[in-house]
């Protein structure tokens, strides 16, 4: 287990539903820095004399569209002219706290969920100030004025654009409780507006962490321990130092770094290092050992995560038991992890594609022994995040290297370094048992989950007193079906590998487990898997809603081409509901081909339907890649995968047709960066079962097991 996170012990994940108004601490201070040519009512927006509206977003853009969705929230209540809206990445500051986390960070599909209220209020407050300014200018009552497309309009027809009102609006008091629109008045929320970040992403001008260049900067490449927890005991850097362009070799807790003029020289230097490693406690780690450890743990009683009725007294007329398994997974962001750090006399400046600005500020202040206020975090575009960029391993190491070398340092992980830096989705085993009564209705359901604890690994959370890691059981614990006797247990098992948040976290494996087992129950009951679920979701209208919509749009029950079969699954994660129907065939070599996926989504009120659909499709691809290929395995303590040849990605030629349908909903808006993922694998493997009669209980899908 790595210990690099120790300085970060700060419980920032307060999931208490805390929703802060737009006047967050610091918002006003940042607002006062406005130049006179601008109206800057709060930290989240500026209106220029040229009518341009700049929305300042504290969240990280990693593809999920938050740099468009947040501006839509602000622009709606501001009644802005969308064609004049631009987005700007915020610095690290209290004002940009994620309302759900209580610290500035992006993850957990929280952005739209947490900012739905606060960012609308920010826009509404500005609008009221602009109206007051116009009313004052015209010497009329504010109630005689309305706003439209970036202008205040008086009932007489007089009109002033926001740009003409910046000086007068700046003098207005900031309303504490600005009036928000009714959803029926929305003109910008709910529209398929174009992403604001597209142009820079098609001409090469967008700046990601890896694109940072500073004067005098060195590039570092790190030799990491070949086994998790290993330590370098002797380092011969004589050959590395002979490589042209290599400037320094520095040993740090994470490994041995070669600093050079550029990446290529640094990598050549790194590859020339001769290091003796003490492999430490994990030298014998193997995937077979992990499977054995987790599987055996499910034979023992675990900590109780949920207990309803009495599973012991209701075995039913027919009983089923099954053991499911999922492997460790790497995130494999297209942009390998990297960070640029500059430790100066008066503080630390860092440039990185990070999901955790707030935590980084605290952690790096410890690393550099400075006040948190002296840590400046410049958030770059993220070439994928998926949870991986919530971790601070790369920012810590870059900062240490800058401090020790006295230079600005860009630390770059090679693809192999990135894949072997641990921070994996936990491996997990779940043992199920269930009983059906004579009519085929489930009367009991037991699940025992064994896996490592993300909470404990995170460095900022602890296992609660009941001993249940909520990430380890989410998706099994909350099985939504109407079953009278239900028990879920958790056994924490630590094979020794650092685990981390991976797109949709525990749901990524647990929905595969639970929905597959439900499919087994349907089959044992002799019922259609869609109808079986439907009959058990009477108390769950949102689950039922997406299940029915997906089935209807997929043409559930209607004929398919020869050899193609359907599977269905449904999931709730991060407050959003998604059902998916997959159409799959399996060739004679056992290779599955997914032809079409139909998804139905209920994520409450929708800010940008097209972005919701694209995120759902993206999560489907991520889930399909994992289901078909994803596994990180260990042999003699070493990770066996390193690049895209051994850790394959879904490619263009394998891409299914994807259709996403959105349920009209007045529920609170929830995120869609992750919730499209969990239902994919069980929908695909249920279809494979129908095609082959073979039940996949272990991911990734093994074609050998499906050969005709």
């Amino acid at each position, binding site marked *: 287990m790595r210990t690099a996170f120790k300085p970060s012990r700060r419980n920032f994940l307060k999931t208490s539903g805390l929703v802060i108004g737009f006047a967050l601490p610091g918002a006003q201070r940042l607002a006062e820095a406005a130049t006179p040519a601008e109206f800057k009512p709060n930290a989240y927006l500026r209106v220029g004399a040229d009518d341009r509206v700049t929305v300042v977003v504290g969240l990280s*853009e*990693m*593809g*999920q*569209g938050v740099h468009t969705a947040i501006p839509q929230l602000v622009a709606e209540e501001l009644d802005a002219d969308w064609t004049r809206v631009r987005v700007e990445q915020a610095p690290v500051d209290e004002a940009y706290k994620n309302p759900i986390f209580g610290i500035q960070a992006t993850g957990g599909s929280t952005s739209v969920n947490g900012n739905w209220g606060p960012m609308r209020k920010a826009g509404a407050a500005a609008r009221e100030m602009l109206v007051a300014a116009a009313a004052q200018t015209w010497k009329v009552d504010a109630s005689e004025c309305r706003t439209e497309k970036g202008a205040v309009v008086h009932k007489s027809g007089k009109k002033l654009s926001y740009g003409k009102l910046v000086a007068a609006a700046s003098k207005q008091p900031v309303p504490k409780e600005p009036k928000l629109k009714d959803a029926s008045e929305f003109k910008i929320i709910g529209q398929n507006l*174009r*992403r604001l*970040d*597209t*142009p*820079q*992403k*098609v*001409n*090469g001008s*967008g*700046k*990601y962490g*890896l*694109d940072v*260049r500073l004067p005098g900067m060195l*590039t570092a490449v790190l030799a990491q321990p070949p086994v998790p927890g290993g330590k370098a005991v002797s380092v011969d850097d004589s050959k590395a130092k002979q490589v*042209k362009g290599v400037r320094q070799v520095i040993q740090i807790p994470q490994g041995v770094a070669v600093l050079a*003029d*550029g*990446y*290529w020289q640094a990598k050549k230097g790194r590859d020339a290092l001769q290091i003796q490693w003490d492999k430490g406690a994990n030298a014998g780690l193997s995937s077979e050992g992990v499977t054995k450890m987790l599987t055996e743990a499910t034979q023992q009683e675990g900590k109780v995560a949920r207990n309803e009725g009495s599973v012991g007294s209701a075995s039913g007329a027919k009983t089923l038991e099954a053991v499911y398994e999922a492997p460790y997974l790497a995130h*494999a*962001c*297209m*942009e*390998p992890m990297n960070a640029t750090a500059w430790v100066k006399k008066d503080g630390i400046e860092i440039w990185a594609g990070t999901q955790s600005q707030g935590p980084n500020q605290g952690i790096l202040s410890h690393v550099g022994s400075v006040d948190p206020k002296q840590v400046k975090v410049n958030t770059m*575009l*993220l*070439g*994928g*995040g*998926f949870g991986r960029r919530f971790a601070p391993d790369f920012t810590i190491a870059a900062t240490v290297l800058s401090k020790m070398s006295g230079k600005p340092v860009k630390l*770059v992980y*090679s*693809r192999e370094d990135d894949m072997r830096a641990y921070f994996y989705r936990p491996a997990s085993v779940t043992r199920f048992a269930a009983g059906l009564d004579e009519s085929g209705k489930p009367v009991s359901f037991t699940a025992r989950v064994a896996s490592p604890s993300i909470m404990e690994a995170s460095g900022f959370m602890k296992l609660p007193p009941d001993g249940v890691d909520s990430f380890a059981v989410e998706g099994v614990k909350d099985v939504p079906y109407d079953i009278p006797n239900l028990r879920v247990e958790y056994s924490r098992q630590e094979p020794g590998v650092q685990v981390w948040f991976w797109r949709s976290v525990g749901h990524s494996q647990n929905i595969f487990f639970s929905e597959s087992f439900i499919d087994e129950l349907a089959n044992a009951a002799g019922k259609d898997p869609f109808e079986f679920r439907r009959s058990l979701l009477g108390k769950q209208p949102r689950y039922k809603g997406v299940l029915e919509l997906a089935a209807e749009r997929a043409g559930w029950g209607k004929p398919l081409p020869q050899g193609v079969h359907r599977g269905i699954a449904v999931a709730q994660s991060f407050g959003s509901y998604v059902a998916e129907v997959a159409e799959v065939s399996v060739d004679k070599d056992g290779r599955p081909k997914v032809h079409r996926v139909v998804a139905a989504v209920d994520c409450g009120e929708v800010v940008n339907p*097209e972005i919701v659909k*694209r995120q759902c*499709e*993206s*999560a*489907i*691809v*991520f889930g399909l890649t994992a289901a078909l290929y994803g596994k990180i395995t260990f042999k003699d303590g070493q990770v066996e995968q390193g*690049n*895209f*040849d051994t850790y394959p*990605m*879904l*490619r*263009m*030629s394998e*891409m299914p*047709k*994807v259709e996403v349908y959105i349920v009209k909903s007045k529920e609170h808006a929830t995120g869609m960066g992750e919730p499209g993922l969990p239902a994919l694998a069980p929908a695909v493997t249920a279809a494979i079962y129908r095609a082959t009669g073979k039940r996949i209980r272990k991911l990734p899908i093994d074609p050998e097991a499906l050969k005709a």
Partner: protein
Amino acid sequence: MVTLNVNGKQLQADVDADTPILWVLRDTLGMTGTKFGCGMALCGACTVHLDGAPIRSCMTPVSAAEGRKITTIESMSASRVGKAVQAAWVKHDVPQCGYCQSGQIMSAAALLASNAKPTDRDIDAAMSGNVCRCGTYNQIRAAIKDAAATLSA
């Protein structure tokens, strides 16, 4: 010292002959639009054109480019095909994280320069070397077809 023709300009770089074109572009010449993804020609993020043909710049030594023309994402808008491809990418709002898209656009532009009306199979063949972790493949396909239609109009 090597002399290179990048986007029509003669440039000199003081690098070893075995340095991949990718790192000469990014670190020596400061052109960061071409991306590093895998270093083993497995993901296509580093795709540039060498005399018009798509190559993986992470595995191609700079010595192979002497006397030939390198074209990168930074000059795509200068060609008719590149411009059409970029416009189609904007129209379809293709990128999510966007990191792979320089490479996707370079592969797509090379495809359309040699094949005005690619079939789905042609698109699969030309684009399957380019990984998109965000899964924008369906949008890429639609944008390529759109660009093809624009170019043949």
